[in-house]
């Protein structure tokens, strides 16, 4: 592969790829070169000078170019007269680095003395204290005293809100520029900058809105001091008071690896409570980053939401508390009577172990397994999904990625990052979407289509004539992402089929680093498909006809008033959830479930990587884990299911579900050395992200790899919709008003306060609407008051409606949008 270079660092020989910096080589050789401004994920800038080392190179004879040798035959090394910054020095063959000399020690001491001239040294009240690179490096390499006159210390603002989520302490900032570069290079939201120069250099944002980036929390991890803090964790706890529990973010289908930091919380009556969410390294998934939604909302719903604490049964039209025994017996009896009239409606928020038990129980009674979703295509991701051992980081020159019908950063932020990085490494990116999205900046080909005409795009791609089609067909590896932009069940199914056809006919199916990825609305939708749950075309119609309905981790009544009405048709309704949802309020029996932070399990992400999460905090008294509730219920119905532990449950499912065949928790626990080396001991190098000691997970084999015959599906018929007038199209925004994020106080200022829609300037004009106007949106028999936002990036003739922001819309339909004349 890439060329290797061997060099010597403090007498240790180390071989690393050409192009590495000396800092990275030293890290691998286990030699610590302290850094502040350097970060292995960012471009080096050499601005803090902390990494100064002695650098020597083999001397060459000027005339012959031969390496000059000492008497003993070893190459003669010539050292640079001055120290060099190891972070901007790239490895060379035969290079010799010294980090333990007097000169280097002196330089480190001096740099630290300089940095501390105006540092407030308020470690005792600083959130970073205890995990602070400046603290650690000062202890290791710094001077014990300062020669700087105390009265010359600068006093600067200690509380500068850069946005709703991040607070800057100007005194603590050492102007390493990491936050600025992270926002520009990684997040591509360059809203931070250095202002001024010399001692008067400050971090600023003058953008409007200010630090408004889905990535902002990551800057607090890589800030080498306590200058950047989150409003979530600020002054909440000291790092050493907390213990850790490994987990996964469950807010989108990426499945970011996270760590919960936990401590007893006086405000919650001394309960163990999550204090903050930190990224946990998994270079296959989220690298060392997480988005702000995960960081600021991954646990709040479980911790602060109004949780159900005991089973409820309906008596004389009212729900009353009951024992588990009574509740379960009632359910069992109703299910027995319903038999094949049972419908289990579950969502992809549940773990694989929960879904497997639910599927078994439903099958046992001959019932129907229904998935609560609006996106289809799960059979095809199982058949031709990303192959085993796939790694998005391996995509580059010669490979191609198609992103279709997805605003990737909004739907699954980390996928946006990974796709963009692949494009930056040289992969050909083709983006097909009716309107521009952030990922498009990196696209080689942009395929613009009209909402509802997805079929035309696929016709062209499958015909193979266009430049974009050929780029996809010819690529060494081909990954196709399809998402949620304007798609409903029927169209997404057709998109998945068409994509599968392309992958199969171009010879890309069944290879690692190639395959189909559905950007699912829920974190474990893929697992739900794998366990046999399927969406139905007309959910309301299905619900009206059931004898018994078992709703688990879903809230149809809360999602859609039509479904609420349809529920009236169910003879018997059981709801298993964390909260007394709209649906639960209509139930005959309500079963309280544990939140995912209170138990373990596995989720399968959209890349089909199965990953494990662990119990983080003790469950409240009462609720039980979903898989155990189902097992207890099954026992009453003469079915033996695993209810003791998720490990056992996973074993049982691995014995039956083809893609999971033979997998165990042990396989999921496999870790390997991942670059950059993350450690809680060397915080200056990568920041406060946690290393991964709990497992990187396993990518499931797709059907092709399992040896099944997978014939290319026929080119699908796309549903034809003939629209009259204005078309409302559902789109996905990261910050919605979904039940999971609604409990986060931290994120609250960033969540939409009211229902809103996007329209193009010309559409607004035609409708007589101004930007920011209040309007009435009529969808069938429902009407909403919405705020109109005029956006030139929106195609004309449509109104884009964000999902879960106050308007019920699952499929594109014709609507009316009218100005509301304010009552005078």
């Amino acid at each position, binding site marked *: 592969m890439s060329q290797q270079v061997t060099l010597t660092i403090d007498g240790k020989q180390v071989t690393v790829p050409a192009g590495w910096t000396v800092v990275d080589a030293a890290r691998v050789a286990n030699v610590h070169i302290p850094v502040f401004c350097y970060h292995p994920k960012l471009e080096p800038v050499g601005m803090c000078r902390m990494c100064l080392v002695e650098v020597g190179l083999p001397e060459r004879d000027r005339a012959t170019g031969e390496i000059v040798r000492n008497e003993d035959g070893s190459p003669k090394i010539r050292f640079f007269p001055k120290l060099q910054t190891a972070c901007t020095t790239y490895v060379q063959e035969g290079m010799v680095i010294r980090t333990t000399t007097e000169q280097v020690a002196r330089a480190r001491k001096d740099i630290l003395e300089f940095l501390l001239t105006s540092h407030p040294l308020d470690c005792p009240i600083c959130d970073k204290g205890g995990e602070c690179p400046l603290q650690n490096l000062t202890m290791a390499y710094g001077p014990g005293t300062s020669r700087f006159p105390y009265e010359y210390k600068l006093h600067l603002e200690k509380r500068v809100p850069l946005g709703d989520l991040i607070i800057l302490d100007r005194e603590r900032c050492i102007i390493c520029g990491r936050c600025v570069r992270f926002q520009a290079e990684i997040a591509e939201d*360059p809203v931070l*900058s*250095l*202002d*001024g*120069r010399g001692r008067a250099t400050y971090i600023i*944002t003058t*953008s409007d809105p200010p630090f408004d980036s889905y990535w902002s929390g990551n800057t607090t991890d890589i800030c080498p001091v306590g200058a950047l803090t989150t409003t979530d964790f600020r002054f909440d706890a000291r790092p050493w008071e907390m213990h850790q529990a490994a987990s996964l973010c469950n807010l989108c289908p990426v499945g970011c690896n996270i760590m919960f930091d936990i401590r007893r919380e006086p405000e919650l009556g001394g309960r163990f409570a999550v204090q903050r969410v930190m990224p946990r390294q998994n270079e296959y998934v989220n690298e060392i980053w997480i988005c702000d939604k995960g960081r600021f909302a991954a646990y709040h719903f479980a911790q602060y939401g109004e949780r159900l604490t005991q089973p409820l049964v309906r008596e004389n039209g009212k729900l009353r508390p009951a024992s588990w025994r009574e509740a379960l017996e009632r359910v069992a009896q109703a299910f027995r009577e319903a038999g094949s009239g049972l419908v289990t409606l579950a969502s992809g928020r549940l773990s694989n172990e929960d879904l497997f038990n639910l599927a078994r129980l439903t099958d046992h009674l001959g019932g129907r397994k229904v998935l609560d979703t609006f996106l289809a295509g799960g059979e095809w991701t199982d058949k031709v999904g990303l192959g085993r051992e796939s790694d998005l980081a391996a995509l580059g020159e010669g490979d191609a990625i198609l992103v279709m019908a997805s605003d990737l950063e909004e739907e699954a932020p980390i996928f946006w990052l990974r796709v963009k990085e692949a494009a930056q490494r040289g992969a050909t990116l083709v983006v097909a979407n009716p309107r521009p999205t952030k990922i498009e900046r990196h696209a080689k080909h942009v395929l613009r289509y009209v909402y509802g005409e997805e079929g035309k795009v696929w016709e062209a791609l499958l015909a193979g004539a266009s430049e974009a089609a050929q780029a996809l067909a010819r690529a060494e590896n081909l990954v196709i992402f399809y998402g949620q932009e304007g798609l409903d069940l029927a169209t997404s199914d057709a998109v998945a089929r068409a994509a599968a056809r392309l992958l199969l006919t171009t010879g890309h199916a069944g290879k690692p680093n190639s395959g189909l990825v559905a950007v699912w609305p829920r974190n474990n939708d893929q697992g739900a498909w794998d366990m046999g749950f399927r969406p139905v075309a007309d959910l309301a119609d299905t619900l009206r006809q059931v004898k018994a309905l078992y709703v688990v981790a879903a809230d149809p009544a809360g999602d859609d008033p039509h479904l609420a009405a349809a529920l009236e048709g169910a003879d018997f309704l059981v709801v298993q959830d964390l909260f007394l949802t709209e649906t639960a309020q209509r139930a005959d029996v309500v079963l309280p479930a544990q939140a995912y932070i209170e138990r373990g399990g596995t989720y399968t992400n959209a890349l089909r990587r199965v990953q494990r999460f662990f119990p983080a905090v003790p469950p409240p008294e009462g609720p039980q884990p979903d898989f155990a509730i189902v097992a207890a219920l099954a026992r009453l119905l003469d079915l033996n299911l695993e209810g003791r532990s998720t490990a056992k449950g996973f074993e049982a499912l691995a014995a039956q579900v083809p893609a999971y065949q033979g997998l165990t928790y042990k396989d999921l626990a496999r870790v390997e050395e991942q670059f950059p080396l993350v450690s809680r001991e060397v915080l200056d190098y990568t920041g406060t992200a946690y290393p991964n000691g709990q497992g990187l997970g396993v990518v499931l084999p797709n059907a092709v790899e399992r040896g099944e015959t997978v014939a290319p599906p026929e080119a699908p018929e796309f549903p034809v919709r003939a629209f009259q007038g204005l078309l409302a199209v559902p789109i996905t925004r990261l910050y919605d008003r979904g039940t999971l994020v609604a409990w986060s106080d931290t994120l609250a200022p960033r969540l939409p306060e009211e229902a809103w829609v996007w329209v193009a300037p010309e559409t607004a004009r035609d409708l007589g609407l101004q930007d920011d106007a209040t309007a009435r949106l009529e969808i069938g028999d429902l009407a909403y008051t919405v705020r109109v936002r005029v956006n030139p990036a929106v195609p004309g003739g449509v109104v884009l409606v964000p999902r879960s922001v106050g308007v019920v819309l699952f499929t594109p339909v014709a609507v009316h949008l009218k100005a509301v004349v304010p009552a005078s």
Partner: protein
Amino acid sequence: MNAFYERHKEEIERILAKYPPEHKRSAMLPLLYLAQRDEGYITREAMAQIAEILDVSVTEVDGVVGFYTLLHDKPGGKYRIQVCTDLPCALRGAEQFLHQLEEALGIKAGETTPDGLITLEEVMCIAACDKAPVFQVQTGEGLTYYENMDLEKTLALIAEWRKKHTKTPEGNSS
């Protein structure tokens, strides 16, 4: 595009043509000078409009303005007298010189005379250390160096400017 663009359309296009389109942010400094010529300093509106033209964030433009001492984000006098008080100059009496000047003009460094003619500023080394006291004068026209200065020579210079500006009140705007 925007008002700033419309006002200087030709010149902006000429500047942009010098850089490959994917690196058009390289045109930042010439555009900032253009904006500074308009008002004597760079207004917030100009920053936002330049950001729009170059496809960068306004914070980035702000950072560049903040970095260069010759770019100003606040209004000042027609003449900005920038006295070097860095170490070598300080050793040759630059600080005393500055204080004399402050006293004579009745303003402190960083301030502008009430008539709006002169802003006094302190700067770091301007590479004429051996000719201290030294200052540079920044106007819309550009920079002029004045070396081996003393108070008397400086006041004479100022008197000349003052004369010029009472004769042609519209000043030297280009």
